[in-house]
């Protein structure tokens, strides 16, 4: 059994006493070193979940436990040491006047010694392939590059979990690919849990597990492959089904035997060219 890292126990949250519940009795567990994708339509409560994990918000009902520590006003600074978060807008989380200063920001807050900062900066910028931009100012970087710097600045403080809250939503396809590649490399090399929040089904395929949110409730929790099988239901809760999955469905309706639910083009291709040998 894997060690449990984040636990939501019957969590309910609303932004004000008069306002509707944004999260309604939400429970789930995220394990150590696991990659979980959280997906849901706009306004389904994903960002609220992320902020609750970081102690930026506190639930009115239920309990959130991070690495054995219940999140509350006394423990929030301990929790924030373990939970790193990348936000959606690349510009509005870049604090430093240069890449190096931005990576240092989190370490400065935690009182790291100067020499250690210098070493860590080199190390983490290499991990996100931004080592050539040490002294570059943010307005000379692309959105994808800024997000990679944001990831590096979190890695610098050695968090146990990395949350990406729609970190690719404002990027072009190239930037998106860069981030997804960086993130999966980091997940492979380090013992770190990863939570990627998205409203784009294409981005969940690499995750081990997917949590689907709908109107403040956990709607489903399964592997990406199992989630992809429920295309019609996904559409009903406002999610776009990827082209490959739609194509596979059409092919099935034409009596072409596709056994495994393909997650990407390569898998579909594999299914198709081995079709004859299976028949």
């Amino acid at each position, binding site marked *: 059994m894997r060690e449990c890292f984040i636990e939501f126990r019957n969590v309910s949250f609303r932004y004000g006493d008069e306002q509707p519940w944004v999260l309604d009795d939400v429970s789930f567990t995220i394990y150590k070193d696991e990659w979980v994708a959280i997906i849901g339509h706009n306004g389904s409560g994903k960002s609220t979940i992320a902020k609750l994990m970081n102690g930026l918000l506190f639930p009115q009902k239920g309990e959130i436990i991070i690495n054995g520590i219940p999140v509350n006003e006394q423990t929030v600074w301990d929790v924030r040491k373990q939970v790193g978060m990348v936000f959606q807008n690349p510009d509005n989380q870049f*604090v430093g006047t240069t890449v*190096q200063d931005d990576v*240092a920001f989190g370490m400065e807050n935690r009182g790291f*010694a100067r020499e250690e*900062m210098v070493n860590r900066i080199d190390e983490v910028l290499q991990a996100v392939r931004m080592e050539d931009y040490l002294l570059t100012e*943010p307005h000379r970087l692309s959105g994808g590059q800024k997000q990679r710097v944001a990831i590096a600045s979190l890695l610098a403080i050695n968090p146990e979990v990395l949350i990406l809250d729609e970190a690719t939503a404002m990027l072009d396809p190239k930037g998106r690919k860069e981030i997804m590649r960086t993130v999966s490399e980091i997940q492979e090399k380090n013992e770190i849990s990863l939570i990627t929040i998205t409203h784009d089904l294409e981005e969940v395929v690499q995750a081990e597990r997917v949590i689907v949110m709908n109107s403040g409730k956990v709607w489903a929790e399964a592997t990406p492959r199992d989630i992809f099988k429920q295309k019609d239901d996904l559409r009903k809760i406002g999610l776009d089904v990827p082209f490959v999955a739609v194509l596979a469905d059409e092919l099935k309706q034409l009596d072409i035997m596709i056994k495994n639910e393909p997650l990407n083009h390569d898998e579909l291709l594999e299914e198709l060219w081995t079709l004859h040998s299976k028949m």
Partner: protein
Amino acid sequence: MNNAIVIGQYVPGNSLIHRLDPRMKITIIFFFVIVVFFANNIISYSILTIFAILTTLSTRISLRFILKGLTPVWFLIAFTFILHLIVTKEGTVLFDVFGYKVYSGALIQGFAISLRFFLLILITSLLTLTTTPIEITDAVEDLLHPLKKIKFPVHELALMMSISLRFIPTLLQETDKISKAQASRGVDFRTGPIKERLHAIVPLLVPLFVSAFKRAEELAMAMEARGYQGGEGRTRLRQLKIKGLDILVFLFFLAVVAALFWTRNY
């Protein structure tokens, strides 16, 4: 257009003056500003002028560029000079201009005061020409450090300055984007009567302000998520260090000041 954005008037370089510790530069300028008022004869003025010229030359920035940066001040310098010619009535009458008598004392004093003024502006402008805004911020934070004792928010002020520096280019890019978007909808910023042009600024400012407030809110949240709890217990990556060069330059400056006071009585 990205590369066109330069904050302040910093000219990159690696000259002696560029490499000086920014705190040292600010300290020297501070004392220079005071000392200038002690010059009282041709020798002491010459010493200050030579010091200023030497400093200017050692920045290795083109003189033309530096003087161009002073354009707005030329007018003030000229104005000071003329004012002195009219007001001061000492010494002998040199000549008459449209009935106004110009005295020799006025000429000398006008020249001295204008020179003083010019030297002040020149030396202070060398600071911003050879020091990045962020270095100046660091130096200000460090020099104001003693004020923390009387609860002056030194760290917060420096953080505010550095975040403003960080966001100026971002907001300029955004202004550019919004003005193009509005222009493409037919808003005209450039022609027409002033009143209409001012009116056209509104659809530019409103989205800019809305977005700036949203940015501020998100930035505050991101900073908190990254463990920012104020200046207490915080360490610094950028650290200023007094080098041998700084001490040498300061000693040289002290020698200049000593020479000035010595020649005052000549």
